[in-house]
């Protein structure tokens, strides 16, 4: 299971990469693996406000449809339209080409509610048992 360092994670298997006032968000390798082949993605529009741990996007795979929650709150400033056309990118490259959105952070303190790589690794290990 690929869990890179330098990112923060949620219990619902989303990742976020904070870069100054902005944050890039997506779903983890664990999430894409348990979803199976992703067939459809619905992203929020630019300018939409996301709230931490509230629904932000929807993904459908051959197995199920799932909500994707925002790791942090803020306004959506960039949307990865490529994954809408090629959802397989989320399966192939969940942390690079398969990112979902970039938001402008509204509350940096929220990151205290998230896990770092080590904590998430332990969390995933706990789920397997």
């Amino acid at each position, binding site marked *: 299971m690929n869990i890179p360092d330098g990112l923060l994670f949620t219990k619902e298997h989303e990742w976020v990469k904070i870069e100054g006032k902005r944050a890039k968000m997506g779903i983890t390798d664990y999430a894409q693996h348990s979803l199976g*082949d992703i067939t459809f993605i619905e992203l929020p529009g630019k300018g939409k406000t996301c709230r931490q741990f509230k629904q932000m996007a929807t993904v*459908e795979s051959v197995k199920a449809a799932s909500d994707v929650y925002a790791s942090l709150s803020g306004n959506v400033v960039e949307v990865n339209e490529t994954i809408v056309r090629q959802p397989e990118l989320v399966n192939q490259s969940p942390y690079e080409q398969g990112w979902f959105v970039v938001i402008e952070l509204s509350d940096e303190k929220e990151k205290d509610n998230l896990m770092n790589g080590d904590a998430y690794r332990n969390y995933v290990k706990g789920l397997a048992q």
Partner: protein
Amino acid sequence: MCGKFRGDSMRLIFETSVSGRRGHRFPGCEEYPAAVFPKKYRRAADAGLPEVSELDVVRHYTNLSRLNYSVDTNFYPLGSCTMKYNPKFTEKIAGLDGFLDLHPLMPQLRGGGMLAQGSLEVVYKTERLLSEITGMNAFTMQPLAGAHGELTGVMIIAAYHRDRGRKRKYIIVPDSSHGTNPASAAIAGFEVIVVPSDKNGYMDFELFKEKLNEDVAGVMLTCPNTLGIFEAQIKKICDAAHKVGALVYYDGANLNAIMGKARPGDLGFDIVHLNLHKTFGTPHGGGGPGAGPVGVVKTLKDFLPISRVVKRTDGTFALDYNYPKSIGYIAPFFGNFGVILKSYAYIMLLGRTGLIDASEYAVLNANYCRVKLKKYFNLPYDCICKHEFVLSAEAQKQKGVSALDIAKYLISKGVHPPTVYFPLIVKEALMIEPTESESKETLDAFIDTMIAIARMVEDNPEVLKAAPENMPVKRLDETKAARELVVRWKAA
């Protein structure tokens, strides 16, 4: 049938078209009747219909129909769907001229009601029978399918709170619920709160109580739940919901387990939808259509959709539209009348003891399969089940064979696969519902096949991965089908 022709049934009828071939020629139509039709109604280009002979058409559709799989052809243990046998005599009743030829507008015409008494009586009496079976006060027979019944039920919940001047925005569902429950709630404008299951497979009561407050409009549950387990704390759940003024909704998908044994109304439910095509012996899906009648307790009666069938003091039946609090029209006419009629016939044939027998055999058959199979597959919630049970192929998956591979292999063996990957709380789920229709011999044959599969996971997993082998098409690329959906044929 030799291989060359066999592929034909997999071709579209458009692909069998040969230019200039005709099935029939009508006299006087040798020429395109251009003069008859004003120009504005004429096509600019050819319609592109298939050019085939009558025999081409007959063979095409006959061969297609032979690929059909149904409970009439073999075992169909599709969990949550209750694919029980649909007795043929109900088709005969539904085919009687007096029912079949009645125009649906007849009861709405002046004096027409008197010419439609038989059909109105069937709707009225079916409502009464279902009310008795479920412990509800009144029913509407109009919803055209299970999910349509759910939407109707949730709209009644909304209307009830609105009538009391309350603004409530949440509907609670357990994480084992049918996907249509949260979907129906969302379509009706509610926000959905999902409560996880505990280790026994029940809704986690403490977490439920945490989420429950005076903003909650209703709680949607099925009992027995999607794991096939009777929700032992159902009374506690209903009482807690009622305490904050919320209504409790019963998804009737699993009524086949408790019919004649326990009534949702007595358990504390306020609204019930039933699937006549599951529990009451009418065809499913393509053989349908379905019907999803909704029952309510007395306090909710006024919110039921119109029209309502009422019995006058002189014993005749009539349509009544005078329900100002009604949620209004939800379907044209009276629902799927043919389905209602078949269910009425089914209930009348089985009677009280027959319905109880049906539930008992459904539960017995499920437990027989469960006990026989739990040595070979994981059974995450291991207790006496009701009409269905959920195995996990997690151990097989560790060895490279998934629930999907098992399902595909069952197709090769002439068995319809169980529901797979649902409920979502069980990994590699195989949800098996044998129903009461099946003999011990059929169940044993299924059990033997499943045991053979468990052994093949050890000895010969490649065969399972390659299944199905003996079908017109082999393993389909489901990902490609979902990503590159083609629903319309286009000429090359």
